[in-house]
């Protein structure tokens, strides 16, 4: 992205694959568009580089708070007027926040595209964060935080992130902040965050559906063309995650029936050359079919858990690799011992050639399914844009994955999943020893 460039409005195309159109406005905003004809509907997806990693110290949760209030009134129309216009067209504008992006997404009938885009653009550019709305949504956020505190799975994952990264690191903090920090956030804080992060150069739009790409791009240029703002200041480098030896925490929640285990490591960034080896390792370990090797052992053979899986969250910074399981409290020790054993086995022996072939084939073969729906394509395009993967990434992906060798996956396992360096958090009706 080059914020100073003239309006390129250049449509790039590729001979095969998804081949979306892409344009960069003079203001720096990026627009991607892909025409599909599955239904007479269009999905609009907007990403702004304003995620929780941008939460200032003491105001943890401000990005999430913005996501809950950005569509509650603008300089031009009230919250009720926005609600009425969207509701009358059957449109739900979903807002969400991740570590690095604030997202607004909706699907509308193709006939409503221009009208809905106008509303979405107004919401992105001119939110007011009026005091009454801020106070009302604060009550909702406080309730959400209280619900999280009663959710063993959420407590386990948040507890794991806090231990893996430390409270000073953006990945170690709670997305929704704390009861204290949310009390401190007011309209000024929300407007400051919006002004600093929600600017043209941080905006990436994806339009997918029953609309010609050029028409969608023209509509976006019209809606956002006059918007100006300084580029986002990059946040400073966060402190390094604390060095890891085996450690953990038990958080008893004796009112619950099932124990939740979150077991993890700090892994890699999305830009790491070993990324594709990690993807395959994760698939073999805890994804393939009913949860990879972990699912085979813990669910299918031992019958201990309804769910067990692993997830790799490689992002702009090194993200976590997390193993999750829900088990009876009497099986906590046994389940963690099995996870330890399976990780040690993969790290010691590496994957088999058969596993390499199966997981590679599965991940490549699942691309058409991932890209079947308008929302699926829009989310994919935003991922490609965030990580700078290029418009032909869907065409290149099979070769990138196929090139990974068994030794590279074995190396990834050796580096990433040594049980002696694991962090383990157990929540639920369990007061036993730390596994």
């Amino acid at each position, binding site marked *: 992205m080059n914020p100073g460039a003239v309006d390129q409005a250049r449509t790039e195309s590729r001979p095969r694959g998804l081949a979306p159109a892409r344009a960069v406005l003079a203001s720096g905003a990026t627009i991607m568009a892909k025409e599909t004809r599955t239904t007479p*509907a269009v999905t609009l997806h907007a990403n702004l580089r304003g995620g929780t990693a941008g939460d200032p110290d003491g105001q943890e949760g401000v990005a999430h708070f913005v996501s809950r209030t950005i569509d509650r009134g603008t300089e031009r129309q009230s919250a009720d007027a926005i609600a009425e216009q969207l509701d009358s067209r059957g449109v739900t504008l979903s807002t969400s926040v991740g570590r690095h992006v604030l997202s607004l997404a909706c699907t509308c009938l193709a006939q409503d595209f221009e009208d809905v885009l106008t509303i979405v653009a107004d919401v992105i550019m001119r939110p007011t964060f009026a005091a009454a709305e801020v106070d009302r949504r604060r009550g909702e956020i406080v309730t959400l935080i209280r619900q999280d505190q009663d959710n063993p799975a959420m407590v386990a994952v948040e507890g794991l992130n806090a231990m893996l990264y430390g409270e000073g690191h953006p990945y170690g903090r709670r997305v929704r902040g704390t009861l204290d920090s949310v009390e401190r956030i007011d309209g000024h804080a929300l407007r400051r965050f919006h002004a600093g992060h929600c600017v043209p150069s941080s905006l990436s739009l994806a339009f997918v559906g029953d609309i010609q790409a050029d028409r969608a791009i023209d509509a976006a240029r019209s809606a956002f063309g006059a918007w100006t703002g300084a580029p986002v200041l990059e946040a400073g480098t966060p402190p390094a995650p604390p060095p890891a030896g085996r450690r953990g925490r038990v958080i008893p929640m004796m*009112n619950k*029936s099932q124990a939740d285990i979150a077991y993890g490591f700090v892994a890699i960034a999305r830009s790491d050359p070993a990324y594709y080896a990690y993807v395959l390792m994760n698939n073999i370990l805890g994804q393939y079919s009913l949860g990879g090797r972990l699912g085979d052992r813990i669910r299918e053979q031992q019958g201990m858990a309804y769910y067990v899986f692993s997830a790799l969250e490689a992002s702009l910074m090194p993200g976590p690799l997390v193993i999750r399981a829900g088990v009876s409290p009497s099986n906590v020790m046994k389940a963690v011992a099995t996870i330890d054993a399976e990780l040690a086995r993969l790290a010691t022996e590496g994957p088999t050639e058969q596993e390499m072939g199966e997981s590679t084939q599965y991940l490549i073969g699942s691309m058409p399914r991932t890209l079947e729906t308008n929302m699926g394509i829009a989310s994919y395009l935003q991922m490609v844009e965030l990580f700078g993967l290029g418009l032909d990434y869907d065409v290149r992906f099979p070769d990138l994955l196929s090139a990974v060798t068994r030794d590279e996956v074995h190396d990834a396992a050796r580096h990433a999943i040594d049980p002696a360096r694991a962090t383990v958090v157990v929540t639920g009706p369990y007061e036993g020893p730390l596994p």
Partner: protein
Amino acid sequence: MATLEHMPESASAVREEVLDNGLHVLIQSVHTAPLATVWCWYGVGSKDETPGLTGVSHWVEHMNFKGTTNIPREQVKGIIEKYGGYWNGYTWIDQTTYTETATRDALDHMLFIEAERMHGCLYDPADCESERTVIISELQGGENDPEQLLDQELTATAFRAHGYRHPTIGWLSDLQTMTRDDLHGHYKRFYVPNNATLVVVGDVEPSDVMRRVASHFGTIQPAEVGRRRQTLEPEQLGERRLTISKEGTTAYLKIGFHAPEVTGRDFLPLLLLDAVLTGAKGVNLMASFRTPPPQRSARLYHALVDTGLASAVNGALAPTAEPYLYTIAMTATDGTPLARLEEAALGEIDRVRAGGVTPQELRKAKNQLRARLVFEGDSITNIAHQLGFFETIASWQWLSSMGQSIESVTLEDVGAVAAERLRAASRTIGCFEPVR
């Protein structure tokens, strides 16, 4: 890898056939992606279960992923994955279903798996035992969620006689005592072609699909399912209440009203009434409740969320074969007494019972439902799900005529349904009071 170059827009009409053994087959070509989806539906759900065997349908569903006569246990995994595919199954009150979605060249494998599942599952005793603890773990995971617990208790209170009263996962004591023969008996009785609907949708050619279906399923023998005993739920004569007092952080309120079956005259007026009260959801059990409804201008959102009494309000009217429930679920904001929330919610319900809805509200509700029906057709998986789901509770044609039927619902229809269906005597009020 198959690429995603645009294919000509085309979705054929639904082709419907019945094999000699009674297997109902629905096929639709949709050439928007190089994919195919197969769904095999069985007309059996938790409402068909008897005391002592609650949860058997769901447990049987789990057992039917553990190998067959011609698919060794260890080879179940990998058949569909080889084609980048996804497979799963679910059980609910009226139905049990299995699905695979993968690239179109996996079609034969998908049909083979479903044919095997229909007549060749193994029910190895050790596998049955191992799955007992998996299912109990699933049940306990659900109990961790206070909203799920409240829903279970409310349903059991609203129904006294009908099979809809017990949870699909079953009661714990039944899960602890059910035997391998109980599971196998249920499987042998209900998993017959004359009790099944096979749906195939995607980048396929219907005649070719029919040939393959006949080859895979044609020799499976039909069998009588036998008489299903079902007690009609007697009319509720007065308001029922329950309160769960349990350690927790958040208070929840849920109000349930007896609702019509999907083919009942009141169903669509009640669906539109729900859209006015809490925003339109649509009628896809898989998709509708995952995407929040457009609800910020809805009556209950204004009265409960915009006033700060609740952080969330959700209405739910599921399409079912027999009369089930219309529920309104609310989360109290931190510090709000449930009594205040209940008073405000019942005040709005009284208002709509007395005054009906406005023409503008009805128009908006119809627009919302029309849009949701379009959005729900965005994938072959969703399209096939809807064909099979409605075939198990009514007929797949019901869904295709729904758009037109919605248009013909009048203000008077909605007003009358509000007055009749939301009566105090027909409701059950459930509270989850956190003990801190």
